């Protein structure tokens, strides 16, 4: 069973359908008790960091998320669900969860033709082997939609790197039972489904 955390930050349909594609059972919930009962937790989200943190606090989800991460439950953050794990986001000067050391920064391209947000497929250069990358070739492209990027303070956390707008940023991070991606595996075709299937089978 995959528990998908619903904190009203965007549309969860595509995440649900991607897991169901390979037969995983999915529960979508905004209830901290369900999150605590989860054996695998997916923490997706699109939108603004500030609104996301307000929703998480309002729904009483922050402690539940910290607890499942701390106790070793396989945990996958996606997009805003990755960014709010860091300490601080430049988006709206938002204090985030601080599960991971580091900040979220805005892209500031010198080239005016470099568009913000980054929308589209970009290569993820694998920085360290990880069970979630099993069967996925180095430099495979994944689908991105974002204006801000994670900048973890500890380079050891970085599992994948991507190049955009004069920045080489951490497009995937990993620590123990936690994995998080700036890209959207649920929108990244067969290769993205492989990453999600790897997560569904992962026993950290």
């Amino acid at each position, binding site marked *: 069973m995959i528990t998908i955390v619903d904190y009203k930050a*965007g*549309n969860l*349909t*595509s995440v649900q*359908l*991607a897991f*169901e*594609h390979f037969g995983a059972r999915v529960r979508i919930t905004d209830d901290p008790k369900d999150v605590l009962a989860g054996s695998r937790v997916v923490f997706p989200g*699109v*939108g603004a960091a500030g609104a996301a943190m307000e929703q998480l606090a309002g729904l009483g989800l922050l402690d539940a998320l910290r607890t499942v991460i701390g106790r070793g439950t396989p945990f996958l953050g996606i997009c805003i669900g990755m960014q709010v794990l860091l300490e601080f986001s430049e988006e709206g000067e938002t204090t985030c969860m601080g599960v991971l050391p580091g900040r979220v920064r805005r892209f500031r391209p010198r080239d*005016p*033709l470099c*568009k*913000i*947000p*980054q*929308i*589209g*497929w*970009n*290569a993820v250069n694998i920085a360290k082997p990880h069970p979630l990358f099993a069967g996925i*070739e180095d430099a*495979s*492209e994944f*689908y*991105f*939609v974002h204006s801000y990027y994670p900048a973890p303070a500890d380079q050891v956390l970085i599992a994948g790197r991507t*190049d*955009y707008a004069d920045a080489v940023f951490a497009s995937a991070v990993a620590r123990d039972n936690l994995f998080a991606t700036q890209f959207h595996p*649920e*929108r*990244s*075709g*067969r*290769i*993205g*489904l492989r990453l999600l299937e790897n997560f569904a089978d992962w026993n950290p």
Partner: protein
Amino acid sequence: MLTKRIIPCLDVRDKKVTKGVRFQNNVDLGDPVEMAVAYSDGGCDELVFYDITASAERRPIDIEMVRQVARAVHIPFAVGGGIQNLDDMRRVLLAGAEKVSVNSLAVENPGIIAEGARQFGAQCIVLGMDPAKTDDLARFPSGYEITTRGFRHRTGLDALAWAKRAEQLGAGEIVVNSVDADGTREGYELNLTRLIATNVGVPVVASGGAGVPRHLTDVFKEAFADAAIIASMTHSGEYSIKAIKDELIAAGVPIRRKW
């Protein structure tokens, strides 16, 4: 490096994909879900569906079709053609579309862009525009006027001014569909695409006129498009996505190679 996107466009009428010169002489090409799967497996980077009869008949978008597509393909896709209000946007996005595309509706009610961006995020809101060439440079400094309703209606809006306005309102992406190039298969309208792409900060998708892979190379390298819509060149079976991508890669365009 961010790759350039190739986006097949599926015009849907009565649950069938059709293609004519737009809105005329339409011929059934197949089932939308089967075609979406074939294109996704074939390496397209995104898809767009226009429910082309929805607007004319004033009926809502076929949500069940959107659901079926979302279950079948796991790449981004946009839906347009019959969006009439925020509720339609919400239903299409909750059914699994990544983006909604508004065109005539945004001209009639520009506030829908801002409201959609606020409720669902700017990345979900695509502005489609159909500019036509004009000699009246006094009224239309860009040389293009926005048309709507299948090119039949002239709006009095300058194309570049409208693009900038839409960006300010919160459109996450702009599809520039040249009325003059549409259906010609003689190439995208490079001047128009370049004009918009170099003057807005959001991604610009070129549309209308693609006939051979070289046309995509030109619109990416010379007109700075971020993505390009294709239709008849692949619907007809004349080119595969792979063949188009191979030619673009050989020309040095950044393209997604693994799928």
